[in-house]
């Protein structure tokens, strides 16, 4: 499945009220390291159907980025049952991103 794009409208339902694990990639179109991570996030979305893989465009959704103190992109936050449990800052290779889920 392709990564789900989040907005202030669907964030509560898709992440905060979701009972499983969600991985959220905070990104922007002008950010090179984010472009590097983008295809990896899509690969993980295809492979890991047990996890909800989401993306937040920080330019379009500054409120969500602000709420989670995102001050550098890419930032990846893993949520479990709606709670942020792991935060990773910077462009990491696939193996390190997958390790965030274990």
């Amino acid at each position, binding site marked *: 499945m392709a990564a789900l794009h989040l907005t202030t409208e669907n964030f509560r339902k898709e992440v905060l009220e979701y009972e499983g694990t969600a991985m959220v990639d905070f990104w922007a179109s*002008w*950010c*090179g*390291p984010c*472009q*590097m*991570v983008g295809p990896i996030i899509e690969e993980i979305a295809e492979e890991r159907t047990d996890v909800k893989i989401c993306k937040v465009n*920080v330019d379009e959704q500054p409120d969500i*980025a602000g709420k989670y*103190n*995102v*001050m*550098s*992109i890419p*930032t990846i936050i893993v949520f479990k049952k709606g709670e942020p449990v792991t*935060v990773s*800052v*910077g*462009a*990491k*290779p*696939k*193996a390190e991103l997958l390790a965030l889920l274990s």
Partner: protein
Amino acid sequence: MKDVIIIGAGTAGLTAAIYALRAGKSVLVLEQGNYGGQIINTPKVENYPGIEQISGYEFASGLFRQAEKLGMEYRNEKVKDIRLDAADGDNGEALSSADVKAGGKIVETTEQSYHARALILATGAKNRPLGVEREAEYTGRGISYCATCDGMFFRGKKTAVVGGGNTALEDAAFLSNYCEKVYLIHRREEFRGEEKLVQELQKRENVEFLLNKTVQALEGNLTLEAVILRDKNSGEESRLEISGLFVAIGQMPENEVFADLIKLDDHGYILAGEDCRTNVEGIFAAGDCRSKTVRQLTTAAADGAVAALGASQV
């Protein structure tokens, strides 16, 4: 056995891969992070000959695709050690195979070992950290090493830049367009950067210079809230409330794993001349990891070509 193993997939490493592949060699590229190197952080490259403008990401992914199409083997593994095959070593053990006769090099990664006839070290350089406690904890939580990447998160806030070179001056100018206030913290009285940039900053009302000061400590809860500064002359400490600290104190190499075998300069860069040859036959250094004066995209590419053509003759 590979003909050439390249460590690092930035501009120098990937250019070396293209040249070695076109010379008909088998090439393995090892990279611990993502490919692309430092240029990934540059939104607009406007000084690469023949290309008016390109994003760092486009440039790097173009290089990667080009090398892939030529048959590059690419692995995401971290190198732990490099050494010479026994035949090349001091003890002169008996030659047991054709590979060893060729004077092989062994590259050991966190996953496995590889053999190659020639090695190209293209490990680049990384942003130099401040070296204060809790720095890693606040990275992405108020500390940044890239003003153009993260500046927008500090719109209307108070920030500081640490450094005295052109990058620090340019970062301060960039941030002053968005931030309420920008402090420029520098450990000396004089800036290393261009006088024109200094004058430009002096004209900006929301920029203040804090000279002869160093960052001693970081404070905050979830995010950075203040830094403790120390005056070099008086020794006095002061607290400065800021939400963002941009570190621009230069680059540093990452060549420690090669230090047993390869001669480094006082700053940790690999000693090799314009021919990219290190003190060990068959091992080359290319790009920012090499001891040199100019570190540009063009010089990284140039080193890649020189090292690959040298390595292809090994």
